[in-house]
């Protein structure tokens, strides 16, 4: 059923009514509206007095309104939170896949990739109970601008779930021992410092292993290199 019937021949013409409607004026204000009689004034005054005397009910902020406000804030902040969450996830994934940075130590020289991987070699567990060798103060190959991750590695305080670094002795006859952690290799050049570092590492990470890639019979010991030699 159509809402409006089409105009047909013979239908009344409403132009006159429309014109009359448009010519309607709002009723004029009563001339004495503001000069009302005493009774009217008294009535209005009584209403004003009563209006001033009423006390609104004491109300507390409804909990529902608080939750609405929080919901609205959350809705407004949702894009920002999502972006922040994405950044965190991205950062975590990069952290998981990126190679750890080498340790910072005055006694370590960092030579990434300097030594070939020790593939297929048997591993010999270091005995953590062996006493630490007396360290010397030599070998000051400093790496001053290394990041925190490297320091953590050197101090055994890296990420809680990170695997313990693996100690690889690539060329013991050259007084060089390699610390391997993930895809990063740290070549320890000072033999005396190597033993100190290994002992320290063993204290912090009893699971650390010293690997002898060349030969299973190769004697491996924290005191393997001669002290003070390089």
């Amino acid at each position, binding site marked *: 059923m159509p809402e409006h019937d089409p105009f047909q021949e013979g239908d009344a013409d409403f132009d006159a009514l429309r014109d009359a409607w448009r010519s309607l004026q709002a009723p004029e204000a009563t001339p004495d509206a503001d000069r009302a009689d005493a009774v*009217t004034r008294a009535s209005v005054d009584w209403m004003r007095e009563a209006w001033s005397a*009423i006390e*609104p*009910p004491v*109300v507390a902020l409804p909990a529902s309104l608080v939750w609405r*406000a929080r919901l609205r*804030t959350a809705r407004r902040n949702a894009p920002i939170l999502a972006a922040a969450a994405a950044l965190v996830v991205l950062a975590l994934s990069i952290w998981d896949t990126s190679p750890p940075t080498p340790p910072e130590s005055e006694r370590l020289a960092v030579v990434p990739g300097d030594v070939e991987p020790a593939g297929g070699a048997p591993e010999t567990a270091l005995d953590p109970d062996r006493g630490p060798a007396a360290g010397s103060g030599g070998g000051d190959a400093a790496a001053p601008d290394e990041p925190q991750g490297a320091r953590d590695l050197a101090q055994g305080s890296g990420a809680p779930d990170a695997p313990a670094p693996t100690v690889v002795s690539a060329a013991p006859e050259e007084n060089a021992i390699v610390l391997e952690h993930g895809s990063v290799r740290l070549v320890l050049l000072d033999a005396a410092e190597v033993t100190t570092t290994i002992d320290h590492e063993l204290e912090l990470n009893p699971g650390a292993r010293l690997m002898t890639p060349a030969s299973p019979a190769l004697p491996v010991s924290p005191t393997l290199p001669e002290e003070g030699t390089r």
Partner: protein
Amino acid sequence: MHPPQPEPDRTLVLAVLAGDTAALDRWYRLEHPTVWRLALGVLTDPGAAEDLAQEAMLRLHDRLDRWDSERPYTRWRNTVVLNLCRDRLRRSAARDRAETAAAEDRAGRESLPPAAELEQGELRALIGQALGKLTPREREAFVLRELEGLPTKEVAAAMEIGESSLRSLLTLARRRLREFLGARLPETIGGEHA
């Protein structure tokens, strides 16, 4: 005329929008009395006014971000509250008619004491009865202009009518109130009618 309440400033509203719970609490305490009075004035029923005031506060909060801060806050708030009151009146028109008839039966002819001597319950009931004599539009006009003391221009804007129409509504409202209250006012107040 009710003493003017402090109005929420732009900073407070923005703090509410930002999710500041303390600001929300302050805004609510600041606004609720005025909203409740408006609702009472238009609906005339204290219970309905309390109910609508809560609903209006939620509505105002939900729409707070639609308020154009370049425009007066009070005008925007009054418009929202008045619209809610009109909706409520439309929905309960039949019930209101029945209640009005009952109120007329209850209305006594004893003289009215000064408002300050009445208890809150009586006061609200009397205000409701008196305002119930007016049409909804007259009530809006009378409450905003005479009782809340808003400027004529602002009331006309809130009611979306011209100022001359507003004056006409006010005249009619006063006349009806005179009919209802005049005969009950004590001589000292009513003066010549006694």
